[in-house]
């Protein structure tokens, strides 16, 4: 069965520091991968999605970037964090005809 791993679970970072969140998927090949952010009391906001190695589509212009160095690895990064980057970050994979499978999420607090 397919599983999705995401780490770390929580992170507290100072403003201006870099960020790297990692997501890996097991049990499937060439998955469509997604990064979502969930702010308190708000819906999930799609940040990036990837249909293959090195292929990244950005939904929201911002301080973040994504990379897909391997088939089942998806990384969310920032060179300099802002206070507004705080939130709950979720990695997900999806295949056509089914819903998203989300990871357990990373709660990021920028201080």
């Amino acid at each position, binding site marked *: 069965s397919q599983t999705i791993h995401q780490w770390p679970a929580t992170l507290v970072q100072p403003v201006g520091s870099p960020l790297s969140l990692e997501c890996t998927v097991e049990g499937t090949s060439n998955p469509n991968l997604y990064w979502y952010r969930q702010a308190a*009391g708000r819906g999930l906001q*799609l940040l990036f999605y990837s249909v293959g190695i090195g292929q990244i589509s950005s939904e929201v212009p911002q301080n973040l970037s994504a990379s897909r160095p391997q088939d089942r690895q998806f990384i969310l990064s920032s060179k300099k964090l802002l206070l507004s980057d705080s939130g709950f970050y979720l990695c997900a994979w999806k295949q056509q005809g089914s819903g998203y499978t989300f990871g357990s*999420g990373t709660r990021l607090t920028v201080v």
Partner: protein
Amino acid sequence: QKEVEQDPGPLSVPEGAIVSLNCTYSNSAFQYFMWYRQYSRKGPELLMYTYSSGNKEDGRFTAQVDKSSKYISLFIRDSQPSDSATYLCAMSVGDNFNKFYFGSGTKLNVKP
């Protein structure tokens, strides 16, 4: 106007009650609909995935889509304290790399 509207609640019901959770939307082209359950500090868990109008049942859960009213519902029968969570709806025009729009979630509390 938001693409998807969802009452944030909280909705508090006694154990055993039938729960009705709802979302309204503005885009009449939406055809794919999902419901998720999210426990505190956890990732959302898929409950239902439906296409177009009609009903879909899975155990105690029933998803209903009324495209003429642009309204979807999730019914939970015989609610349990373990159903206490935030429920999110999501919808999209297509299912092939299309963007899904999420509601902000309804918080449900089932009291023993």
